[in-house]
């Protein structure tokens, strides 16, 4: 096997090379060639990751490939170093694996866009940044990737830059992420102050010296969580994610569903050793995730844009993951990240296929009956929907069930709320499915199935969504949770998980939630499968529904609370404080000098005799003083 020292830097280097080459040659390279090159390089990165995975010995601990010292001041040594361990390998495989499929899909999806090369360069750059994020051997390298994916996300959301709304969405995403980053940066500064280093291995080792609930650790974890809130779109910073759907659909699939938004989860799992020692933060994480999951689910029910529905489901699922982390079930959280990457990428790509088939139409009220026109898309989409609803034996069932079981152990009412969320998820996802693929077509376009280059990734993802559960098959089904044991070698928090529910209880919990989900599917089928009329606009809905459809007025609230006051502040600071106070202050200094000059120039009478007298007087004074001094 090739050594990890050589292979590990190669993984991010390949997409970076792709980004640079395509960007440099984007005028000479045809869009198609750029797509192939980008896909091949990501595929290469995936192969490298697989090789690394095969050559990785979990018992041997983390392997660190140190390139060079990045920042070196006084006793601060931050290396540009990559860490290969169970956690980063898992994420690398997801990022490059799903990334390859989405690149492949994009070749078809973007084939008639004039700026195809730019798109692929950015997509490669994103993958590079995401790989830095997950492979970093210290917080700083992770932060490089963290900001890098933010930038790529900005550029890709605003990819069609002639539309001001898209640009606004892109800016909103970047700024909201930045708000989170403030927390992240400060968290890093605190980590450095407390531990004297940012290296993961050292920090996690030294974490043991702290007592549970140590204020320093609580502060660190809270600050890191603020960063995670921004990136992973949790309350109160989630409103950027639905708007981010302005970008091309593959972007939504790769960045805003499968990989980037899970960076927050990754960060928390990475720092699990700190989080298990900060129960206060864990509670905060738990409740934030819970509220976000429910809030986003309620909003999702009333969305009519195919991508918006998926976006809210993403926010909601991310909430589930945070709940898992808050419960201390790190492996369950990451397991859900993995399965979610499969089925959410699948759903987004399926949605993209639908949009492609309808020539850009995104409103589900003007779809319907696409089952026959786009059979491949329909079948794979159905698999994805079933997976997200958690139907046995699809992957979503296992990952969601793991979280629910942990929730029940922590507190039945949390379990109850999560099941309610799952029911809502099932409801709006099947509403989506039925409105799009069932009934009769309500639009004007001529639907056609997407080319093979797009459907092939769909099928691959569908298969993964079905069998993904095997990655962490619980004991109940004869498995022995391989993923959990694998991750336990990298994230010490995973080793502390314990689930001690009786088999009977577990069976009944599963049965209960599955029954509710099936019931919901039946209701949804009854309401939407044969619907011929359009749903009313949000404003026409009765009160509680209208509020939910309006995203609980969060955007309006932020606008009133932050955007408008900030604009007002900016204008008035400039107009009032600066113009009325600061400027006159400075002018006053100049003015005083001028007034003194005005007074002094009167001395210049122009009369030579006066000057003579003055001269003599000066002479006298001088002589007098000199003589007195003698």
């Amino acid at each position, binding site marked *: 096997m090739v050594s990890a020292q050589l292979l590990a830097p190669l993984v991010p280097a390949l997409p970076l090379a792709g980004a640079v080459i395509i*960007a440099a040659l984007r005028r000479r390279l045809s869009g198609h060639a750029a797509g192939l090159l980008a896909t091949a390089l990501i595929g290469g990165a995936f192969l490298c990751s697989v090789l690394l995975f095969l050559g990785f010995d979990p018992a041997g601990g983390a392997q660190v490939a140190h390139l060079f010292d990045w920042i070196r*001041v006084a006793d601060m040594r931050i290396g540009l170093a990559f860490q290969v361990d169970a956690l980063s390998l898992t994420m690398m495989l997801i990022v490059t694996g799903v990334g390859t499929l989405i690149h492949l899909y994009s070749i078809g999806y973007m084939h008639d866009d004039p700026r195809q090369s730019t798109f692929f360069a950015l997509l490669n750059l994103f993958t590079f940044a995401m790989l830095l994020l997950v492979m970093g051997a210290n917080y700083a390298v992770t932060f490089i990737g963290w900001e890098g994916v933010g930038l790529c996300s900005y550029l890709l959301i605003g990819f069609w830059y*002639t539309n001001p709304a898209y*640009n606004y969405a892109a800016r909103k995403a970047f*700024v909201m992420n930045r708000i989170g980053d403030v927390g992240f*940066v400060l968290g890093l500064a605190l980590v450095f*102050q407390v531990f004297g280093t940012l290296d993961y291995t050292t920090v996690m080792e030294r974490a043991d010296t702290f007592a549970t609930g140590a204020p320093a650790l609580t502060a660190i974890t809270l600050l890191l969580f603020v960063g995670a809130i921004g990136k992973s779109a949790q309350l109160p910073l989630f409103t950027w994610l639905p708007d981010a759907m302005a970008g091309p659909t593959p972007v939504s699939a790769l960045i805003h569903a499968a990989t980037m938004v899970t960076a927050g989860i990754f960060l928390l799992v990475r720092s699990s050793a700190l989080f298990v020692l900060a129960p206060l933060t864990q509670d905060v994480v738990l409740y934030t995730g819970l509220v976000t999951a429910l809030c986003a689910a309620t909003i999702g029910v009333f969305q009519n844009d195919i991508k918006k529905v998926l976006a809210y489901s993403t926010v909601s699922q991310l909430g589930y993951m945070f709940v898992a982390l808050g419960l201390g079930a790190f492996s369950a959280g990451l397991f859900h990240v993995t399965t979610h990457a499969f089925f959410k990428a699948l759903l987004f790509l399926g949605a993209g296929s639908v949009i492609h088939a309808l020539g850009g139409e995104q409103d589900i009220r003007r779809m319907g009956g696409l089952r026959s026109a786009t059979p491949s898309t329909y079948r794979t989409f159905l698999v994805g929907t079933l997976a997200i609803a958690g139907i046995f034996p699809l992957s979503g069932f296992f990952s969601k069930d793991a979280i629910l079981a942990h929730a029940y152990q922590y507190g039945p009412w949390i379990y109850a709320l999560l099941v309610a969320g799952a029911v809502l998820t099932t409801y709006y996802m099947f509403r989506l499915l039925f409105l799009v693929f069932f009934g009769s077509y309500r639009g004007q376009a001529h639907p056609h199935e997407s080319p093979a280059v797009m459907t092939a990734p769909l099928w691959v993802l569908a298969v993964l969504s079905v069998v993904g559960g095997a990655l962490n098959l619980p004991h109940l089904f004869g498995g022995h949770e391989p993923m959990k044991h694998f991750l336990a070698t990298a994230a010490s928090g995973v080793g502390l998980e314990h689930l001690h529910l009786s088999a009977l209880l577990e069976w009944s919990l599963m049965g209960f939630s599955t029954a509710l989900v099936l019931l919901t599917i039946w209701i949804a089928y009854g309401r939407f499968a044969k619907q011929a009329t359009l749903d009313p606009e949000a404003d026409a809905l009765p009160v509680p529904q209208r509020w939910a459809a309006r995203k609980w007025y969060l955007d309006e609230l932020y606008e009133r609370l932050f955007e408008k006051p900030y604009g007002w502040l*900016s*204008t008035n600071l400039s107009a009032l404080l600066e113009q009325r106070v600061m400027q006159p202050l400075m002018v006053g200094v100049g003015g005083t000098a001028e007034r003194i000059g005005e007074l002094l120039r009167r001395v210049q009478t122009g009369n030579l005799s006066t000057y003579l007298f003055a001269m003599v007087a000066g002479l006298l004074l001088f002589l007098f003083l000199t003589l007195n001094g003698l």
Partner: protein
Amino acid sequence: MLLAALLLLPFATATLLLVARPEAQARMLAMASTLVTAVVVLLLWAGYPGTAVTVVDRDWAPAIGLRLVLGYDGIALLMLVLTGLIFPFIIGAGFKQQLDRPATVNALLLYAQSFLFGVFAAQNAFLFYIFYELALVPVFFLLLFWGGEHRRTITVRFFLYTLLGGLSLLFGLAWCVLQTPAPYSADFTALHALRLGTDVQLWLFWALFLAFAIKLPIFPFHSWQPDTYTMAPLQGTMVLGGVMLKMGLYGILRFVMPIVPEGVLFWRDLVIWLSIGGALYAGAIAFRQREFKRLVAWSSLSHVGLLCAGLFAWNSYGVSGALYQALAHAVLLVGLLYIVGAVTARTGTGDLGAMGGLKLRTPRLAALFMLVLVNAVALPLTQSFVGEWLMFNGLWQHNGWMAFAAACTIVLGAIYMLWAYQRVMLGPDSGRPAVADADRDDHLYLVPLIAISLVLGVYPGPVLDLLEAPVQQMLNTLTALN
């Protein structure tokens, strides 16, 4: 000898330009001169032995302690390198700007360069002061004769204001020199050896600091800056913001911190809060500026506030960060201003409200702007991030709330920079007649700048190593105090 060449070459070229007035070849001559100085400054760096170097040491006016002492340590060398590397770009901007009487313009710029080298190489307080004020003279004429609207009023106002600071500095320095043992000496070594009483240090701090606070400028001494930056010709703004304000930073390090350490200890919290407050204030105001160049001016003010705060955190991270950021800020500001020039030349207006959709016509320029912009918002792997990260750490070590307030500037920075980018480049086609995309010259100019910011962002080691020893040495003063 190399150091002497640094001072004399620009001076000689400038004099030649002024006397012979070869208008047609002026830009090329000036460019050649600055390129040679850039090489010389790099040679100087390559030959740096790692400890302070004194090159010239002789009496000039011993009665007042004025001596001709030239030399450099790591910090001064960084400033020399900064001046040497940035000036080719400042001269280069003139090829597109095409001011009239290019011989005079370039001569003034080269004079400024020569004097700036003097400022950073002087090892004697009065010598420093002479160069410090001399450097202002060419800029004054540049602003007065080639400035924009209201140039006379604004220039005079700026000049008076800075001179006021200079006067206070002169007074402070003279006072300090009189405290040295007879025969008086204004050498840095003599001044740094002073141990003044605490009550004296409390007021002397402001006498010394005021000049640099105005020069930088930090809140609330900043009012001259937006007007001046906006009105000045592009190259003038580049000199002012790219290099001259670093004199303020350098002065604080050379005078304020070593001479009045107790004064710094007493006032630093106030100064840091003023700086950070100013940074936030400027960041907030920048957001609603209607003029592109004024927005850049306010953004510079915001960056500089942070820089000053980092300096006064007074630990190795803060000081190194501030110094590193000084270099980054120069590269950034020159790049941004060049973009302003390029955009204004293409749209014929500096009004952000009247722009938009430029990217449709000029995708390459937009890409270059974006690459400059990532440095402006301090994304990692750019120079600015290294500086800001170190400053945040430095501030954090001093006071967490300060670090928090300082870190908020990254949000404000993202807000106004992206807004500017959107206003200029993005959006629907504004129906403007065809404008040319970035041409070979634009690439020749911006690509090296971007390369510097990226290379030094990925591998800042050489610069940080350069600073290590002198910063540590300076901070030992503080350790000795506590």
